[in-house]
């Protein structure tokens, strides 16, 4: 069955959606940095070692409920993002190796797919039992992702500009340029990080 090409209207719809979603995501990032700067940094508290200290940033709004508000936000976004993280690994393997995949399958019909997901979460729980300072581990995970992301971006970019794969609906040249610059910037960030680690400071 030949697929109908994606209509321009739907692509524009998605562009609006993606633009608004990422804007909101970055707006939240902006205000978290700003609020931490205005509260913690302004009070001379430059080092966050515990969740309780991170929660203090919300004190001007919530007073003694700052801890509760912070915990609510952390747990909510965690419950939403963990399934996405585990699921994306399951899908990635499933697509690359042609496993039966997708959450509509029963466990016994897509054993490998579900096993990947369960294994990922189980290993994560074990890692947490091995040590670990939660603040530090949150931080290191961002760094591991920072190293992986640029390589994935190269794959995405090369695929999106391939007329055969994209059925002649390749990404526009400006989009390719922006994603190319993003890739370079993320390689640079990873390089700067390793330089910093080697300097040992």
């Amino acid at each position, binding site marked *: 069955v030949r697929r109908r090409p994606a209509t321009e209207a739907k692509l524009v719809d998605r562009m609006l959606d993606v633009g608004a979603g990422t804007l909101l995501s970055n707006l939240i990032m902006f205000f978290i940095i700003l609020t931490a700067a205005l509260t913690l940094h302004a009070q001379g508290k430059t080092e966050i070692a515990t969740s309780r200290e991170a929660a203090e940033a919300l004190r001007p709004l919530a007073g003694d409920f700052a801890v509760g508000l912070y915990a609510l936000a952390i747990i909510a976004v965690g419950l939403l993002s963990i*399934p996405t993280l585990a699921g994306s690994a399951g899908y990635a393997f499933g697509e*690359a190796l042609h496993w039966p995949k997708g*959450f509509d399958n029963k466990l016994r019909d897509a054993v490998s797919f579900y096993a990947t997901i369960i294994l990922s979460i189980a290993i994560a729980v074990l890692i947490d039992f091995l040590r670990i300072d939660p603040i530090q581990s949150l931080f290191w995970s961002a760094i*591991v992702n920072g190293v992986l992301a640029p390589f994935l971006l190269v794959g995405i970019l090369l695929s999106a500009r391939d007329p055969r794969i994209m059925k002649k609906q390749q990404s526009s040249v400006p989009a390719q340029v922006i994603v190319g610059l993003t890739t370079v910037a993320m390689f640079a960030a990873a390089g700067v990080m390793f330089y910093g680690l080697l300097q040992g400071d």
Partner: protein
Amino acid sequence: MTDRTTSDRQVVDRPPLRATGTRRRVPDFSCAAGSLAAWEHASGMTKPSQPGLLRRVARALGPGLITGAADDDPSGIVTYSMAGAQHGMALLWLAWITWPLMAAVQMMCARIGMVTGKGLGEVLTLKFPRAVVVVACCALFLANTINIAADLAGMGDAASMLFGLRPYPYVVLFGAGIAFAMVRCRYALIAAVLKWLVLSLFAYVVTAFLVHPDWPEVARDLRPDAAARPGDVADRGGHPRHHHQPLSLLLAGLAGGRGANAARTLRRAASAGNGG
């Protein structure tokens, strides 16, 4: 652009296509935690199509607005907090400069999914040797697992602050609960409720306004060169400098947080495309 009315009509004129497409696709997404947006898109498509640009914009914006906020995961929230606490407003510029970059990356992923109708993993096997893609999958698995560990640790810590006890019981509880729900339940339905809790992140927006910052100074710190002199910024308040996380690590962490979002949205964006 010029044929917007035509394309509008195209969309409006084909409700049967959309409906059947949805019926066929929804099971695919029904529980895909990785395709929350896809599920929402799919369910959005079951609504009768309405003409009019405004309504179309409103409908297009719906899912993205909330899933956008959900993109800032626990590790992101902590990294941003650390950045602000250590360097004040010196790293604020990263927040706006990464917007078009992220938007372009996600749009490219969405486009690949919508045009090919395949997930990204499969598309990459068309372009690269399968072994390379499998190595990339392993790296993704590793990175995501560490990310999950970090998120669980943050959640366990938060819950222990709230309810007492040590964090570990909560880590096991959250981990087991999520795994069970993903296998047994329709997690997308749970997520559709949970996502409203993400609005609690707006507490940071409200707090920023409550403390009445010097907005012109905030605007000055939006310039990227503010980061070139982090020492000045850190010392501006006259506080002694404590032992800092090196700036290079923080920068990488921030980029990584954004990168994690990109990686995470790959699957979501690509699978959302299947509905198109």
